[in-house]
């Protein structure tokens, strides 16, 4: 089978599934819904994997571009085209595999929901849009996917639409994303206006051929590259939940848990990272913006990690953890470690999806309860969920040889190598915090004794196979995914040939620009030292967590903390009051302005002026008409006076 010529079917199949489920199938036909809902992404996954395999084994040109049809005409001729290159291959792999597993999991998790059909339709739609995003050959197709995933995110966060909060959260997600998208759009406009094309390949070629165009001053003292990358990064901030646009992601947890796993952990939120890496040639030409990216990434990483420490909702912890890890990825991209960013993206997809699905399993067992304060000691009730959750926690904490260790280590090494020591410091601190709050969640959830109601305890049960099998498969990924990117240094120290597969695979998409030095090399000893430091920090974080929350200690530490440092605790628990700040500083003044426009400008000024004008006209008429007194003598006088006045006027 020549999967490469069928490239466009990879996103098309899920769309088809969504359409069939959405329009043709009826609510009651649950079996059919499940079949369609799984077959579409499943087929897409198989097709994707085959295509990647055929591509990687050299059956395809380098890189592969497939134009389906031309979208517009004339001066702005843009094709709907797909592109398979190492970067999109990695992304496609992650998206289809993780996506499919989560679909399978959903069959169990959502099985009793009334909106089962709707759910699968949206989920398939999401898969389609996400694949459009990663496989698109130009910014336009990417943007279609970009907004498409945003839409699905909106719809799925608001899945429980008959409650107050979820649709609100969905709206918030969409709007905040839109703020980013607007910058993305401006960036696209600047690119198109400068290069006349939106094709990734062409833009990269042009920039490589003549970097001075991109370096030429554009606006605000920024170069073209600087302006475009800044815009694109603002877009990424929205999608990937970076400061200051991260606020939607924690709220997004209002959606069903598999959705959180798929969209708000594994795939959609990483789109920003993908985009930055995709346009790395421009970022390399805009060092100041790259540094900004790294700074934002680092700040987000530690900021979210601190909030994660004080959250009691298990999904909220994971959400802030996601924000924090995404910050890590941007940190990597900002310091020029693009491969590391994608590496972390991939490993994160596995362990974070696993964490979410695990938490889903917990919530499922708890009958919808998400508050860790009411959990505890679940490990004996959830024999499969617990170990997989633990594996994922170890992975995210960066314990070797699990996936997170390698990817996180590569990021930190990249930061250190680029002499961004402060950023490295923040990164390492975040690593410790990550280990700490993640193990906190493990201890509070699975260890100690149960703190919920008897009724809940009675109902505790392990999830069905259809949910646990994906957990196991993902756990496998969380363990092994890191091995494709074992650092060159380790291979060499161990005396092997360099088997850093990912690096070699991805190197073609990382542009090498003359005069831009990306190859900061660390000595093997430094690299090893750094690894040890990060492992030590991770273990330290774990130990702290164990001391505070391990065993039967439960919530005692939290209470002590709240008593000793009430201010800090409240600050963290309330997420630094950022939502409130935004509300006061942006939303309300804007609403006030809008109301002012309506009531004052529209109603009072414009309509008022009109009404006054009409009134004055009418008043003139109304006063004037009394000149027609009804008395004939007055009329005669008017005539007489009129004649005299006109005569007077005529002779002078």
């Amino acid at each position, binding site marked *: 089978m020549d999967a490469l010529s069928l490239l466009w079917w990879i996103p098309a199949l899920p769309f088809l599934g969504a359409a069939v489920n959405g329009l043709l199938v009826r609510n009651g036909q649950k079996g059919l819904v499940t079949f369609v809902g799984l077959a579409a992404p499943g087929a897409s996954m198989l097709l994707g994997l085959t295509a990647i395999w055929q591509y990687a084994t050299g059956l395809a040109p380098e890189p592969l571009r497939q134009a389906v049809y031309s979208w517009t005409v004339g001066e702005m001729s843009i094709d709907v085209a797909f592109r398979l290159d190492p970067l999109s291959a990695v992304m496609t792999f992650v998206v289809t595999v993780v996506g499919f597993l989560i679909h399978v999991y959903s069959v169990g998790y959502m099985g009793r929901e009334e909106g089962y059909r709707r759910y699968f339709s949206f989920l398939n739609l999401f898969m389609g849009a996400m694949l459009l995003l990663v496989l698109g050959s130009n910014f336009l197709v990417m943007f279609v996917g970009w907004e498409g995933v945003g839409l699905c995110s909106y719809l799925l966060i608001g899945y429980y639409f008959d409650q107050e909060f979820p649709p609100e959260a969905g709206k918030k997600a969409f709007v905040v994303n839109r703020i980013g998208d607007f910058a993305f759009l401006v960036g696209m406009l600047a690119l198109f206006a400068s290069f006349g094309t939106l094709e990734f390949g062409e833009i990269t070629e042009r920039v490589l051929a003549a970097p001075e165009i991109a370096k030429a001053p554009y606006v605000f003292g920024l170069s073209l590259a600087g302006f475009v990358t800044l815009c694109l990064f603002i877009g990424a901030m929205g999608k990937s939940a970076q400061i200051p646009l991260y606020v939607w992601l924690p709220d997004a947890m209002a959606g069903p848990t598999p959705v959180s796993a798929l969209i708000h952990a594994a795939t959609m939120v990483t789109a920003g990272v993908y985009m930055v890496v995709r346009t790395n040639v421009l970022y390399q030409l805009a060092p100041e913006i790259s540094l900004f990216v790294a700074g934002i990434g680092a700040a987000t990483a530690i900021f979210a990690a601190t909030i994660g420490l004080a959250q009691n909702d298990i999904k909220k912890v994971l959400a802030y953890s996601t924000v924090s890890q995404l910050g890590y990825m941007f940190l990597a991209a900002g310091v020029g470690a693009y491969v590391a960013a994608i590496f972390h993206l991939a490993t994160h997809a596995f362990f974070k999806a696993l964490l979410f699905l695990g938490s889903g399993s917990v919530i499922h067992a708890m009958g919808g309860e998400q508050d860790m304060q009411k959990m505890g000691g679940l490990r004996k009730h959830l024999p499969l969920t617990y170990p997989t959750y633990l594996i994922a926690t170890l992975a995210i904490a960066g314990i070797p040889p699990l996936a997170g260790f390698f990817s996180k280590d590569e990021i930190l090494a990249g930061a250190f190598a680029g002499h961004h020591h402060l950023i490295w410091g923040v990164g390492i601190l975040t690593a410790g915090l990550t280990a700490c709050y993640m193990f906190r969640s493990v201890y509070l959830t699975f260890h100690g004794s149960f703190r919920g109601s008897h009724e809940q305890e009675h109902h505790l049960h392990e999830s069905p196979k259809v949910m646990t099998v994906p957990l196991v498969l993902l756990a496998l990924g969380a363990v092994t995914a890191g091995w494709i990117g074992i650092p060159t240094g380790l291979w060499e120290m161990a005396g092997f040939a360099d088997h850093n597969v990912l690096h070699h695979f991805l190197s073609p998409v990382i542009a090498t620009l003359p005069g831009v030095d990306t190859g900061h090399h660390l000595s093997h000893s430094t690299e090893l030292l750094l690894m040890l430091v990060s492992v030590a920090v991770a273990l330290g974080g774990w130990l702290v967590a164990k001391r505070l929350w391990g065993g039967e200690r439960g919530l005692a530490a939290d209470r002590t903390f709240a008593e000793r440092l009430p201010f800090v605790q409240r600050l963290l628990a309330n997420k630094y009051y950022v939502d409130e700040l935004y509300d006061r500083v942006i939303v309300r003044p804007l609403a006030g302005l809008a109301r002012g426009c309506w009531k004052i400008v529209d109603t009072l000024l414009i309509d008022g002026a009109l009404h006054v004008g*009409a009134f004055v*006209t*009418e008043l*003139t*008429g*109304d006063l*004037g*008409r009394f*000149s*027609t007194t*009804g008395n*004939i003598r*007055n*009329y*005669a006088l*008017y*005539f007489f*006076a*009129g*004649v005299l006045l*006109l*005569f007077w*006027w*005529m*002779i002078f």
Partner: protein
Amino acid sequence: MNPEYSVSTAELASLAPEIVLTVGGSLLLLLEAFAPRLRRSFHWLGLAFVAAASWYVATLPAGPSFAGLIEASSLTAAFSQAVLLAAALGLLVAPGYLSRERLLAGEYPALLLWCAAGLLLLVRGVELLTLFVALELLSLCLYGLAGFHRRIASSAEAALKYFLMGAFVSAFLVYGIALVYGETGSTRIEGIAAALARGQGSPGLLLLGFLLLACGFAFKLSLVPFHAWAPDVYQGAPSPVVAFLSVAPKVASVVVLVRLVLLVAESPLGGKWPDLLALLAAASMLVGNLFALVQRDIKRMLAYSGIAHMGYVMIPLAAPGPHSWQPVLVYLVAYVLMNAGAFAIVTMIYGQPGEQHAISSLAGWGYRFPLLAGCLTVCMVSLAGVPPTAGFLGKYFVFLHAIEHGRLGLALIGIATSLIGVAFYLRVVYMLYMKPEVAAPEGFVIDFGGRVGAVIAAGGSLLLGIWPQRFLSWVAASFERL
């Protein structure tokens, strides 16, 4: 006998339309006396006379007659036909009203026909005395018609006011004639023109004389500031009379006024005359529309609207020349149709003549009188000057003339005021269709003739707007000599 004063058959024949009308009127009066049972057919007879007059007008050979006291040309024919159209409409809508008010009598058509004869004479007269006599002939008839509803005070009051004002103004007119005659030595337009060209006479007295003449006819046209009588008379006089009164005398008076203005403007006295007309036009448009805006009585509103429309008609005279005739004629024909149409419908659907003709009582009647309300709507839209109606065609030519001859300011005033106009014409439409009915109409009589009149007026207004070609080629033919 001096052969100069003998009357030839050809000259008599040149008076054929007027003679037909006068004889017709007299005949009807006789029939009223001797065969009152035929009353119901009087108006149809009258129509026949109007038709005959119309035919005579159409076939009249061009040229002066009666030693140049009157003349016939395609131009006078065109305006005469407009007058006759108004007379026909006035006759068509009257019988329903008259029988409803138990006023049916031969005097009505008789007065109307005599009045029409006076109007035709006014259109054709080119000598001051002829004009004066014609004017008095038509005025006296109109006084009688305005007071035709003997039993109600408002009708009598309207007639009296009209009479007193008319008499007052005619004194000025005669004085003007005297001055012009005295300073130029002639009462014929041609003679006056020649004298003016020679520079004969005292400019001051001539100016005064012409001004008095112009004001006299401006009074007939109800131009501001000589307008004040119009609302009272329109409101008080019987509605079918107003349908005639509000249009026919205007057509004829405009002809005289145009003649006068052209006469003066082309003479050494010219100077400020165009500006005078511009002033009158602007004042009329403004006052007419502004005062109409606040009226609650539809007849009174239409009176003020008529004032405004005469302002529009005057726009081409602000840049006088032979080219002024054409827009004036187009506008007047449109005005005859839409204004007479509006009054015709008012005649029929307001059942109580003495009462106020409140616009608000039209509420919801659009569904009660679908045909008449539709016609009224068309007339209102046409009066408002919205295409595709005759009113728009008229405005088009008038504004075009203004722009062509550098009177842009006047055109802009015209536009601003027509916007005000839209507001009150639309009020009628929304009353008809958009308000719930508050009171059922009472005592109304809708007869065949009235319906025909309304349809002719409204249909004509629409036709002139949509397919004006035939009308315009007729107009064009009327001005071939100019």
